[in-house]
């Protein structure tokens, strides 16, 4: 009963016209920032934190929370319309969202992304509100051995994502992990593959590499299509939002991906990008029609978007209860809390319950704001499709260059973006999948860092990876994941051989 009394007070503290105004403003800015390739969620929050200095604490946090939620959804707009993920979290959305655009169903894809983002985001915040303390305690028990096995489990997803050509998928994934080793070694601090460039000491900048792979690569493919007359079907929006029957078909995927996103968000170090891949992979694995994934399947969009938005609530669990950021975006939010004199941790709930719960309630309302503002933007955003491809190509390149430069104020980052654009184009041209490459880049540092730390802790004893209960569970899950996926591939090949004979 005390908990509900606190919630009631916090709601009264939040529910003023000023806070609602800041909520909508923050969410709108977040959607725009998320939609712009190169403008990441983290960058958007970092840009707006200074604006909250002079604001009321709850107002400032409300605006930042709305921006966080809005930008994670906003990435789906450019992912679906231009195959250019606005944020890393929307990579997996391109797999099915863009093919839907090519079929003239961009409105349905955007509507599905909006609906599932809202539901996923709300789910994550409800979990945050109800089970934050015990979940954070469990996540804190993860050490280097557990994180290494989490990374390996994540890398086995490569097998699921590249069923059509397992060998090329493994090559792409391994190449991604190799790219992630560029920079300082995590233990000795010795540079690897930097060739004397100081800009590479911190490794390949992730956002420019991502922009290059997905944005520049698409631009180079568009060049071939630019010679053809514009297909009027491609710019057809079609109906907005899925039908009730379609919503019923995706409801299980929605729930599963929301749970996955929340759990991934709670784990420190794992972000919305990993959540969207895991959600997408699981949806494909559990689906009755996995062959439809990647061809413009509604379930694919739903899985990715609900998972990445559920991360918002999940990532704030360790931040608010323990002061440990769940990902880069929540790390910047930590700065926003400190600026207002709030020290995240267990005492935050004791000393400032109105502010803490008020912030969490504002996140719930930001999901409503995303729904309202997103519906308005669906009508506006497809007009981008009416731009002739010959004009769209330089526009995308300029946004990619601007975004890459803005990340680190460096021309090297833009050069890296161009190089990765060529790499992405060549890889897809020779039928190497890009998703495992991106997964390798994301999980490589986690795998190496935690492996080295674990071996240092155990003084070289590899049994550390099988000595703790959580490790054993993760090992079993990894072996089960690999076995199941290989069995599925073998089964499909057998069926294919039987049907041919």
């Amino acid at each position, binding site marked *: 009963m005390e908990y509900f009394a606190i919630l009631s007070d916090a709601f009264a503290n939040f529910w003023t016209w000023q806070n609602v105004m800041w909520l909508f403003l923050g969410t709108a800015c977040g959607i725009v920032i998320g939609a712009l390739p190169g403008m990441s969620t983290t960058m958007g929050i970092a840009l707006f934190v200074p604006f909250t200095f002079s604001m009321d604490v709850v107002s400032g946090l409300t605006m930042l929370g709305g921006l966080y939620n809005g930008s994670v959804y906003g990435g789906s707009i450019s992912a679906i319309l231009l195959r250019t993920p606005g944020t890393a979290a929307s990579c997996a959305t391109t797999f099915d969202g863009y093919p839907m655009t090519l079929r003239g169903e961009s409105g349905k894809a955007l509507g599905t992304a909006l609906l599932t983002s809202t539901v996923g985001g709300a789910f994550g915040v409800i979990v945050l509100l109800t089970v934050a303390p015990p979940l954070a305690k469990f996540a804190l028990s993860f050490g280097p051995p557990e994180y290494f096995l989490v990374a390996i489990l994540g890398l086995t997803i490569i097998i699921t994502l590249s069923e059509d050509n397992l060998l090329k998928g493994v090559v792409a994934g391994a190449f991604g992990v190799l790219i992630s080793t560029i920079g300082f070694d995590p233990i000795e601090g010795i540079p690897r593959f930097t060739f004397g460039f100081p800009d590479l000491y911190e490794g390949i900048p992730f956002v420019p590499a991502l922009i290059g792979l997905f944005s520049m690569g698409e631009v*180079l493919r568009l060049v071939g299509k630019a010679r053809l007359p514009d297909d009027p079907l491609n710019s057809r929006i079609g109906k907005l939002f899925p039908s009730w029957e379609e919503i019923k078909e995706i409801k299980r995927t929605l729930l599963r991906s929301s749970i996955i996103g929340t759990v991934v968000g709670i784990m420190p170090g794992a972000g919305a990008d990993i959540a969207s891949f895991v959600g997408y992979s699981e949806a494909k694995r559990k689906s009755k029609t996995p062959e439809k994934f990647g061809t413009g399947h509604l379930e694919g969009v739903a899985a990715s978007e609900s998972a990445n938005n559920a991360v918002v609530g999940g990532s704030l669990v360790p931040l608010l209860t323990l002061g440990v950021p769940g990902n880069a975006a929540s790390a910047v939010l930590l700065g926003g809390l400190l600026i207002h004199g709030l020290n995240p941790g267990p005492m935050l709930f004791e000393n400032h319950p109105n502010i803490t719960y008020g912030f969490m309630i504002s996140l719930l309302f930001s999901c409503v704001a995303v729904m309202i503002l997103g519906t308005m933007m669906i009508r506006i955003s497809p007009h981008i499709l009416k731009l002739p491809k010959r004009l769209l190509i330089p526009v995308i390149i300029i946004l990619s260059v601007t975004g890459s430069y803005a990340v680190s104020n460096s021309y090297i980052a833009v050069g890296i973006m161009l190089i990765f654009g060529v790499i992405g184009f060549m890889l897809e041209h020779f039928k190497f999948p890009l998703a495992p490459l991106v997964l390798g880049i994301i999980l490589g540092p986690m795998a190496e860092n935690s492996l080295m730390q674990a071996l240092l802790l155990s003084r070289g004893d590899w049994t550390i990876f099988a000595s703790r209960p959580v490790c054993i569970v993760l090992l079993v899950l990894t072996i089960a994941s690999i076995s199941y996926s290989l069995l599925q591939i073998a089964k499909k090949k057998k069926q294919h051989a039987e049907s041919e004979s």
Partner: protein
Amino acid sequence: MAKGTCINSDRWCAVGGLAFCGLVYGLLLDVDKTVRTFPLSVVSILFLCFAVLLWKSCNPTANKEIVWIDFQAVGVVVFAALYLFCLPHLGYTLCTGIFCLATALMLGFKRYLAAFLVSIGFAVGVYLLFFRILNVPLPRLGIGIL
């Protein structure tokens, strides 16, 4: 304009990949042993995969496909590289406007006035949005206007 030739792309990818692995292995030899263990393991996996790919591509029934060289795509990459090179010298707005116009015309966009207006409008619009409103640093000339 594209030009195509019929090759076994997997075989050439495998050969290129094996050469790449050899290059990376050579670079890692100069690095301390403890530091090179992890990347060396990854290169070994890559080497194995490319070796299997090469073996599979040597199968007489392996598919050959036409590989196209799209010269316009190459042109776009060259233009983008020139854009990057000119940014610190010409400033963001001017460079962006010129690049947008030049690329559109290179790709065959015939409506010259529309291309000019869109290029200038877009360059100024992006500058205002990123630099003035979002305070994102952009390359500028010494006079600080462009």
